[in-house]
């Protein structure tokens, strides 16, 4: 490493085994099941995500088999229509929300720190919270099936069918509340993934040279960050309509069912690429390993990822070609939908070129890669066909579309994930697999899949619509359906064998030696199975590959061991990867599961219709949230820590640009997207919906003045938050924090005054939208007030000093965001009143 001017000198070597014991004591989970609910380690949480999602995958698979059994004959008497509708709705919802998304989140959480050379994700507790929200939400959704109140409106829940009039029970609420509960985990994962990739990479690993997996996950997380808020907003609005009769989607009162479709597909289309990108990341990681070469076209692939992220938000309308949209818009979205095939094809040819350059070793993961090629290329092409408007009109909502989407999702997600699981299994189990079983599983899955779905293209072209449970008048569809059903059974046996293979490997596999595939990336630079802390010391500038295993295990890298009995990680600069400071991560704690339970109590009360009791749940959530802040502060100024000879870095409590700060900025991007979606709703209903203009409000100046007074208070709060940080070491700092708390409280009171003057939100969509804007401001007021209180507590408890800032920087961010969005909302109301 002498040629590198930025080289960091190595630490003196230690004996690896004592170092391992020291690290493992600090980083491992607590014993017993009571201890296991306190786990926050990314390895544990990532594996839990993946295992749980695979469980939901098998449940979704069983539901699919029930569907195939029903359709095998033309007047299948196996299920009644009601149950059939529940089953296909649940199949889609489970596979999307409880399998695919959590699976990729789990993979990201488990893999990213390892492949980027870090010890953990940026926010371990947030990862655990996400997991519990996912598990509890999933259980709520699933149990509805047992109680016979499962959602039955199709997995995209079109209104008005899913509205209160046409779906009176709680089945739609199960979907809306359950999915929103689960999506907390998606938002948490998106924030965590982005901050981890940008700030926890190994020292000196420049962004432009990180493993491709990092780029793929960065693209995925960016899309999740911007793609999920429209869905979450849509779910909130629909739940408000169902629970409180706020008419966002009711045409008689100025709403419009098309608003739901726009919000849903604003999420729904990027969703496809959110699922595809991590799978492509697996392929880009695995293919060079088995081709015994390097990936070809790194730069082109990165460009393709960035292109996909942007394009995927430009084509949501292509799911809505049949709703009657203007001619020019049709042409535009048709072109954009076709264009999205270009970055995908760049990647596919880069993979083929990589295999071309190398000698391909057909091990089991590579078989699944071939399964991907054979399946996905066809799915992509039928996708291009569907993008063509005249053909789309013909095939929309037939089994052709069902076949297409299964080719894309199974080809583009399931096969790469199977490849990934078989590839990383030795690192998870520390063992080789048992021979032959995996190959048999692959062939059964592969042949079963094509047997089911290839033929379904034909069924669709013959005109069979989706979502029918009987077809007594169409005997010509019968043999095709029977073939599909048999194929489905074969595929199920294949998946069962796959699970058996994994179990056998765990129980009977030979112990694997290090780096069994001779891979280059840093995830293999550790003993097998992967230790709880990943790396006993962290890789320095220059070498970020599997060759650094031994020096790192001997503590020659940066920040060796856990000499201070804490989970310490190295935070780097986003672009260059230059070491910036040392972050101390929280250890095992039950706070995440308690917080998830508090949030769950809110969702359950909403589901039960006990709206009067929800304030209790909200108080519970606020109490839990308050506890989270307890870790984020230190009462003493510490000396810089020795990271390597000649390199000493501060602890994160003495830094301003911490992981938490980056995380807050990232979260606010998602929050801003949610707000922008709400503004889109206002604009859309104002311009498009029938039954506008609304009845006169007669509000005028009093309400605008009250709103302006609230804005003034928010502005004062912003000044207070800036002063609280600037004067943190002096008495005025305490005063500023106190003033900030008062300003936030007063602003909230004034917002209540605005609410008092507003019209009844059930009268017209405009009034409902105003109430939603106000609710948004109120929610952010409460968060800001909490942060102001936290800053006050920091000052009073001596957690601030000239070096330590406490919560003030994060408070400023939220305060400014609250002020900005509220000012926009007031502007909207003023425009409606004046214009």
């Amino acid at each position, binding site marked *: 490493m002498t040629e590198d001017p930025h080289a960091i000198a190595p630490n003196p070597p230690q004996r690896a085994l004592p170092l391992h014991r020291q690290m493992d004591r600090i980083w491992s989970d607590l014993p017993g099941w009571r201890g296991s609910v306190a786990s926050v380690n990314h390895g544990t949480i990532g594996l839990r995500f993946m295992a749980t999602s695979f469980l939901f995958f098998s449940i979704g698979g069983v539901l699919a088999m029930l569907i195939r059994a029903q359709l095998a004959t033309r007047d299948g008497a196996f299920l009644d*229509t009601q149950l059939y509708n529940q089953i296909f709705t649940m199949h889609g919802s489970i596979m999307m929300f409880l399998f695919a998304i959590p699976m990729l989140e789990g993979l990201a959480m488990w893999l990213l720190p390892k492949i980027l050379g870090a010890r953990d994700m940026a926010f371990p507790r947030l990862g655990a919270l996400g997991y519990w929200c996912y598990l509890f939400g999933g259980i709520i959704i699933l149990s509805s099936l047992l109680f016979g109140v499962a959602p039955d409106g199709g997995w995209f829940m*079109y209104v*008005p*069918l899913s509205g209160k*009039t*046409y779906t009176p029970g709680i089945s739609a609420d199960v979907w809306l509340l359950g999915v929103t509960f689960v999506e907390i985990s998606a938002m948490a994962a998106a924030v965590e993934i982005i901050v981890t990739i940008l700030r926890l990479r190994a020292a000196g690993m420049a962004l432009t040279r990180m493993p491709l997996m990092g780029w793929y996950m960065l693209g995925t997380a960016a899309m999740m960050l911007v793609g999920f808020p429209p869905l979450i907003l849509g779910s909130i609005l629909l739940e408000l309509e169902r629970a409180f009769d706020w008419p966002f989607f009711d*045409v008689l009162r100025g709403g419009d*069912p*098309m608003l739901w479709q726009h919000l849903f597909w604003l999420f729904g289309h990027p969703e496809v690429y959110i699922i595809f990108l991590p799978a492509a990341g697996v392929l880009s990681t695995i293919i060079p390993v088995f081709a015994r070469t390097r990936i*070809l*076209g790194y730069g*082109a*692939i990165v460009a*393709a990822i960035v292109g996909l992220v942007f394009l995927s938000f430009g084509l949501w309308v292509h799911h809505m070609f*049949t709703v*009657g949209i203007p*001619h020019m818009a*049709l*042409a535009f979205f*048709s072109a954009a939908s*076709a264009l999205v*095939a*270009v970055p995908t*094809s*760049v990647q*596919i*040819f*880069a*993979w*083929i*070129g*990589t295999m*071309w*350059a*190398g*000698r*391909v070793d057909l091990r089991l993961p590579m078989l699944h890669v*071939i399964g991907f*090629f054979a399946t996905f*290329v*066809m799915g992509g*092409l039928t996708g*291009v066909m569907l*993008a*063509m408007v*005249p*053909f789309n*009109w*013909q095939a*929309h*909502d*037939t089994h052709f579309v069902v076949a297409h989407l299964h080719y894309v999702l199974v080809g583009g997600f399931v096969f790469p994930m199977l490849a990934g699981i078989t590839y990383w299994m030795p690192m998870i189990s520390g063992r080789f697999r048992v021979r032959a079983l995996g190959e048999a599983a692959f062939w059964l899955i592969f042949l079963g899949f094509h047997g089911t779905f290839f033929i379904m293209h034909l069924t669709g072209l013959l*005109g069979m*619509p*989706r*979502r029918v449970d009987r077809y007594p*008048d169409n005997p010509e569809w019968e043999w095709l359906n029977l073939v599909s059903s048999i194929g489905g059974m074969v595929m199920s046996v294949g998946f069962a064998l796959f699970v058996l293979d994994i179990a056998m490997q765990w129980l009977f596999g030979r112990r694997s030696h290090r780096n069994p595939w001779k891979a280059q990336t840093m995830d293999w630079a550790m003993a097998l199975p992967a230790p709880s802390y990943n790396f006993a010391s962290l890789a320095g500038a220059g070498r970020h590959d599997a060759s650094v295993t031994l020096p790192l295990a001997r503590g020659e890298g940066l920040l060796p061991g856990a000499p201070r009995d804490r989970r310490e990680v190295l935070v780097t600069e986003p672009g260059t990867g230059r070491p910036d400071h040392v972050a101390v991560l929280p250890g095992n704690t039950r706070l995440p599961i308690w917080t998830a339970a508090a949030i769950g109590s809110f969702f359950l009360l909403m589901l039960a219709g006990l709206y009067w009791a929800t304030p209790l749940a909200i108080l519970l959530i606020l109490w839990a949230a308050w506890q989270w802040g307890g870790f984020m502060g230190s009462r003493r100024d510490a000396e810089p820590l020795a990271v390597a000879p000649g390199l000493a870095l501060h602890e994160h409590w003495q830094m301003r640009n911490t992981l938490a700060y980056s995380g807050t900025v990232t979260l606010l991007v998602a929050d801003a997207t949610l707000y922008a979606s709400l503004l889109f709703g206002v604009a859309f209903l104002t311009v498009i*919906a*029938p*039954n506008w203009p609304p009845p006169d409000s007669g509000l005028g100046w009093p309400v605008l003045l009250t709103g302006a007074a609230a804005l003034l208070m928010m502005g004062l709060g912003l000044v207070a938050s800036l002063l609280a940080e600037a004067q943190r070491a002096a008495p005025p700092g305490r005063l500023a924090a106190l003033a900030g708390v008062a300003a936030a409280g007063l602003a909230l009171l004034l917002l209540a005054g605005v609410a008092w003057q507003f019209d009844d939100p059930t009268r017209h969509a405009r009034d409902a939208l105003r109430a939603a804007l106000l609710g948004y401001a109120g929610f952010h007021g409460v968060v800001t007030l909490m942060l102001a209180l936290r800053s006050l507590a920091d000052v009073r408890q001596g957690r601030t000093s000239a070096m330590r800032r406490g919560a003030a920087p994060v408070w400023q961010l939220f305060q400014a965001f609250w002020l900005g969005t509220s000012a926009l909302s007031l502007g909207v109301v003023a425009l409606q009143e004046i214009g």
Partner: protein
Amino acid sequence: MLIGSGLITVLVLTLAGLAIWRGPRPSDERRWTIWWGLGFSMSVLAVLLAFALRAGERIIARDDGTLQVEAEAQQWRWRFVQPGPDGPVQTEGVLYVPAGQPFDIVLTSRDVIHSFWVPQLGGKMDAIPGHRNVHRLMADAPGTHEGLCAEFCGIGHAAMRFEVVVYDPADPPPFVSAESLP
């Protein structure tokens, strides 16, 4: 288009197969990513898109005095209105249209979203509460076609079917007429 897709699939899979089965060979980055990845895919897409836009142009409904019929969807039945000699004629579950001339169908819904689709006549269009969608279709020869609802609309969705009777314009059924009402 089916044939084209099939050919491209075979081509890509052959390339992948060749790459896998034969040993290491020199592999040029630009050739794969620029020529194949960008060039090949863009040209295929451009051709496809041009065809689609041209075909789409012909079937877009315009306001040019074409015969208009109306369909109103409701869980789970269709009501049609077509011009007759003595004013509009309402029918339930059966739509009468003349052969050999385009007609516009105006779609509305009384409750949830439905979708009007007659596979033999071409594409489909949604019936959405609060909206009026117009869709242009044409039947070539007299006969009877099966139509169905193509957007999931509740428990009776699968049974929400209708019939389209295409008649010879020279010899219409006594109660309808092929002329637009003034």
